[in-house]
Structure formats: C-alpha cells, structure tokens
C-alpha cells in the first residue's frame, strides 16, 4: 500500500466511486496503517458495506465477505474438515501405507475446507475481509472472532495455530440492533456513519447519476432530506436516493413536482404507513409551490 496520507486514501476511495467524509477517510487510513479492524456502525443504508467494497476496489484487494446471521457457527465461518475426502483417503489408502501416514495425512491442510475467515488470513494476496452485520450473531460468535481480530490467527486443535500469511483489512458492520461486547469494540477502530449532508449527498448522487440535471438533483436531495426528517419506520438510504435519481432520469423529469413525486415515491419509501405519512407531509409541501424553479 502506497497510501501515504489521509487525503490520498480519500482520493483513492473517490476514484472508485465512494465519497468518504473526513472521519471515514481517516479511519480507513488508520486501519491500513495500524492493521486494526474497523467497526462501522450507523443506520441502514448509509454505505457501511459499500465502504468495505470501495476499500477493496481502491486497494486492488479481493473482497472476502462473511454475512452474519443468527446461529452462524465456526464450521460455516472459519473452517471445516472435509470428512468425505478424509473418508475416501482412508478407504483408498487402506491397502498400502501405514497407519501413521494416514493419520498424519488426513489432518493436513488438504482436507481443510476454508470458510471466509480462514480464507481471508490464508490468502496469498492480502484481502479485504468484510464481516457484515455482526450484530445479527450471538455473543459467542463475537468471542470466537476475538483471536482473529487481535492477532490475525486461528487455532485449529488438530493443526495448531494458523497465522495470517497476509494482513487483511477487516471491516465489521453493525446496524446497532444490539450492543456489541466491550471486548470486540476494544479491538477495533470505531466509525459512526450517518446520513450525509445535502452537499455531500449531492456529490454522491451526481457521481452515480451524472446525466440528471443539477437542479433536479438538488431538489431530489432536499426532498430526501425532508423525508428523512420525518419519523419513518425506514428512512430512505443513499442507495435509494441514487435509485430514485435513476428513475427520474428515465421518467425524463424536469423537476420534482407533486405528480412526479407521488408516481415515484415508492422508490424511496417502502412501508405502508410511511407512504401515507410521506405523501401527506412532503407531497403537500411540494404542491404549495406550483412551479418551483430552483
């Protein structure tokens, strides 16, 4: 990594289509320098997962992703013995070869099925490891991660410790649906991502949908801002702003008036009660200005 400064990291991220704010760029920079995992928290849809993907693109590393869910265990996250192959080996080798050979052999790395975590540290090329939605797992799983996160090694009883051949950049994301353990937090750099301000969201939308007229983009971002300020079950995410911008482009909208808004509202609001609320509050506001020219 030749990333010399925070600004360079930020530029590199911007080049691959991720406009990081200052803290995000700084933490990404620190993570690469200090070799510590990043714990990213924030509401859904602010680009937590996207940050990991962008890091992988900007550093040219492969992305190894572990999607967490309730009941995820080490056989699915770390490694597993390929017992079918072990069995075959025993049966095939039954005729020749001594017992010692077989015993040595079947617990070799040939018979190990690597799962994402193992894959991340044993890869010959450094990777970006994304542990997505860590808050969905049990506390026990968090405890299991500790060894990996602090020492970048995994202990397999039959083989001993496997240390990382290359240092991965680790990104953990959490939707804050439960408090993570202190032990886990202690090992990570903490980054809180929030919805971007108007200006930055403008930039983001324009980066992804450059063809939409600037005035419409601004209007769009302002409306999104208004919608987010309402007390919704699921506020629109950045990805949804981008989708909406694309939709408006397809519709050939010149401006966001009440009609366009009601037509395309379902792109950004996806809950029955929310739709009613948004139509009432935001739709009304739009109608107040019959011909908004911004």
């Amino acid at each position: 990594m030749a990333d010399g400064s925070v600004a360079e990291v930020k530029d590199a991220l911007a080049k691959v289509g991720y406009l990081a704010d200052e803290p995000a760029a700084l933490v990404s920079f620190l993570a690469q320098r200090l070799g510590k995992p990043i714990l990213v928290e924030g509401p859904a849809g602010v680009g937590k997962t996207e940050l990991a993907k962008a890091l992988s693109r900007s550093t040219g590393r492969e992305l190894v992703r572990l999607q967490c869910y309730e009941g995820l265990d080490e056989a699915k996250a770390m490694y597993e013995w390929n017992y079918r192959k072990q069995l075959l080996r025993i049966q095939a080798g039954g005729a020749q070869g001594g017992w010692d050979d077989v015993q040595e052999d079947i617990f070799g790395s040939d018979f190990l099925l690597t799962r994402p975590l193992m894959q991340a540290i044993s890869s010959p090329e450094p990777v970006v490891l994304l542990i997505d939605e860590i808050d969905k797992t049990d506390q026990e799983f968090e405890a299991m991660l500790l060894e990996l996160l602090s020492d970048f090694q995994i202990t397999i009883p039959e083989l001993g410790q496997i240390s990382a051949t290359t240092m991965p950049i680790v990104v953990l994301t959490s939707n804050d649906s439960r408090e993570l353990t202190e032990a886990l937090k202690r090992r990570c750099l903490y980054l809180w991502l929030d919805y971007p301000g108007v200006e930055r969201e403008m930039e983001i939308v324009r980066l992804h949908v450059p063809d939409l007229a600037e005035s419409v983009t601004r209007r769009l971002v302002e409306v999104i801002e208004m919608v987010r300020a309402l007390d919704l079950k699921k506020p629109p995410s950045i990805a949804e702003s981008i989708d909406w911008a694309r939709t408006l482009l397809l519709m050939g909208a010149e401006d966001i008036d009440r009609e366009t808004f009601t037509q395309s509202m379902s792109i950004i609001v996806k809950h029955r009660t929310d739709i009613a609320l948004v139509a009432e509050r935001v739709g009304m506001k739009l109608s107040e200005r019959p011909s908004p020219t911004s």
Partner: protein
Amino acid sequence: MSAVSPYGPQADPGPPGLAAKLLGFCEELRGEGVAVGTSEILDAFAALEQVGWTSQDDFREALASTIAKSQDDRRVFELLFDRYFFRAAEAEAVQREVTEHGEAVGGDGEGGASGERLDLDELREQIREAMLDGDQDRMRDLARLAIAAFGRGEGSGVVGVDVQRIRRTLGLTAGNQAPGEDGQERPPIDRAQLTGFERHLRRELERDLIERTSTLPPSRPLAELDRALPTSPTQDLAAVHRAVSQMKRRLATLGQVQRGRSKSRVVDVRRTMRASLETGGVPLRLSYKPKRPRRPEIYVLCDVSTSVTSASVFFLSVLHALHDSFRKLRSFVFIERISEVTDVFEHERDFAVVAQRISSEGGVADVSGYTDYGRVWMEFLTEISDELDPRSTVIVLGDARTNGRQPHAEIFAQVSERAGRLFWLNPEPKLYWNYGDSVMAAYERYCDGAFECWTTRHLENFVNVVAGGVPVAE
C-alpha cells in the same frame, strides 16, 4: 510514553507534553464513565503517530475512533475534548504569560484589535454568511472581531450574559431573515447555526476572561444535563441497560440447570461421519447435535397506571433495556386491561418514541383508569397460558394496588404454576406494602421473589438475588 502508567495516580501532571495531556484527558473521560482501557490509550498513541497533529479535525477523529466506541461515548468525548484541550491550552498560556496583545497586535489581517470600529451591518452580514457556510474558522475569527468591536473586557464579566448581549446588538436571530438592502430574499438561519456561532463567542469570551484574570475557572464534572441524550428522559437509561445485560447472562445460565434431558435428540451427520473415521468409516458412535442453550423466554407485565406514574418511566426503560438484550421477550402493559407492546419495542430503538407510542396506542385504560389486577391476570392467563412453560420467566412490574377491586390471587397462582419462575418488582418501598389498597401479600406468596425496585441499584440487587439461586417453584 510507555513509562507512564495510565492507571497510576494522576495527581502529578507529569512533564509537560502531549502524552501527559492525553493521559489526563483519558482520565477525565473515565471520570465521566467512558470505559477507556489501556489498550485503547496505546491505540490512540499509535494512531496519532500516523496523522498530523496540526490539523485539529484529524487529531480529534484519530482520538475518537480509538477511544470512543459508541455514540454515547462519542457525545461525551466531544464535550470533554473541547473543554479539556481548551483548558490545557489556556493553562499553558497563563503559565507562560503569553497574551494576545503581546503577540498578535497588528498581526490580525482584518485588524480587529487595532482600534477602528467596524461597521455593525457589515459585520452582521459576514457572520451571517459564515453561519450559512458552516465555516468554523471564519466564525471564530468573526466572533473575536465582534468581541473586539464591543470592546474587550467591557462586558458584564458574566460570559453567558455577554454572549446574548453581543448577539442581540448584532441583531442576529434564528429563523427567516429580513430581506437585504437590495431587496433580495435571504436564506433562513436555523437554530443550530446560531448556536454554533454563540459557542464560538462564548469560547472567545472565556479566553478573554482567563487572559485578563490569569486564572482558570475551576473544572467541574459535566452537568447531567449536558450529557443527556437529546431524546431520552431518564439519565438512568445506561445504568438500567447495564443491569439488564447482567441479568441476561445470569438468566441464561440459570435456565440451563432447569432443563432436563430431552428424549428426542438429533443425530449430527457431519460429526458422526467425522467420528467414524476412527473406526474406518463405520459409524459406531453416534454424535448428536449439541443442544443449543435455549434462550430464556421472558414475559414482562408492566403497570402504567397513574399510581405508578413516577416509576413507570423507569419501568419502561427497564422494559426497553430488556428488549435490547432478549430476543424471546414479550412485553405487556396494563392498567385495567392488558395490551401487548412487544411490537412497539421491537421496531423502535428510540426510547422517547416508545414511551409516547405506548401511551397513545396501548389502549389499556378503558373505563376508570384504575388498575384492575384481577382482570389483568385473567386476560393474561387466557391469552398466554398455552405458551407458558417451565422455561418461561414472568416478571411483573407493579405496585399491587388494586383500588379495592378483587385481586384474584388464585388466578395469579395459576400463572405462577405454569411459569417456571415469577418475579415481582414493586416500585414502592417495602414499608408501604400491604398498606391501603396494596395487596402485595396476597401475590407475594406465589412469587419466586418479590423485590422493591425504584432505583437502578435495586435492579442490580434483583439481578444478584436471581443469580444467587432463589428457590425455584416447579
């Protein structure tokens, strides 16, 4: 820096330098309840080696990302960061007798201190622009300019009063702005922007005051109000959450003891095959799927009537914390009737919203608004009884004041029989139990434990007793 023990006594400020200052800062954070471990401090130092110290934003972010590991911590961090480093810098200045006049006379490009009084209107315009741009550095300069314009040290000497005086004289208000001289409409200034400017004013006035008197005002702990989450009414929320997370661990382990051997076990094919390797592929020994410790099932009933008004905020926050910790939790609120509010808690993380929705949608006070415990038990039993089993724990939060109505303790006994354990948390001191219309005694005999509970300490006590192995009625 490694020679300094972060947990050592901090009475001696140590040699002047950043390391000592940082440790002092961490010490203050700890004083405010942020858990800053040694490893975090080491990380902070490591991080600071990587960023420039001259940029305040980088410095602050690097520290924050290594030290403050949650939103709440971050809030305290922000408050303390400003205060601590401001004080540190000022203390240094006082010690070395550095003053603005000694250094900066004539250096100010815009010539704030050099006597000539600025045109008020122009100043106002500039400040307004800076506020709209959110340009912090510019706002700070302008704040200094404004103070200079009104004469340094001419104010009342009370910082808060001076801030408002200057703001008023400048005619700065939040909200819509009067159109400019050329008749153009100007964008409104919102509250936050104005507060931002006031903060700069305050800071500069304080700096000025310190400089004149050459003493620092005493440091005081953050007022509770300062660190209050803007949305949560109770300061105890964090403490409640801690006690509840403790409770979670204990309930989980307790539950296991109770469980008998189940007859049905599931063969774990993968493990069986794996074990069969020892016997040449013949599965002689069967492995069973490990029984996952089942999560305790908890039913919480919470009284929200007027007689427990003072306690119900506390109870609701207990409920809120419980929901954070347990997945299999069903919660009910009751006054005259019972109403399930599990959904409300599951979809809302925000305490204020939860409290408000419960009062508006609970639909629990039908006729008189007085608690009817007898009816509540009946409803609870008919609705839920099939789902109660020895694994389940029922927790009642209420004062057991029936307003003279039939307590129906026999139905309560049935609930207690079906549930594995039943606890009662009463918001009244034990002294008042069974006085007046309280029928605590009637219920208490069916409980596995009844506790007074109106502070977090009581809650912790409850957790401890539960963990200590209260006899379990089976």
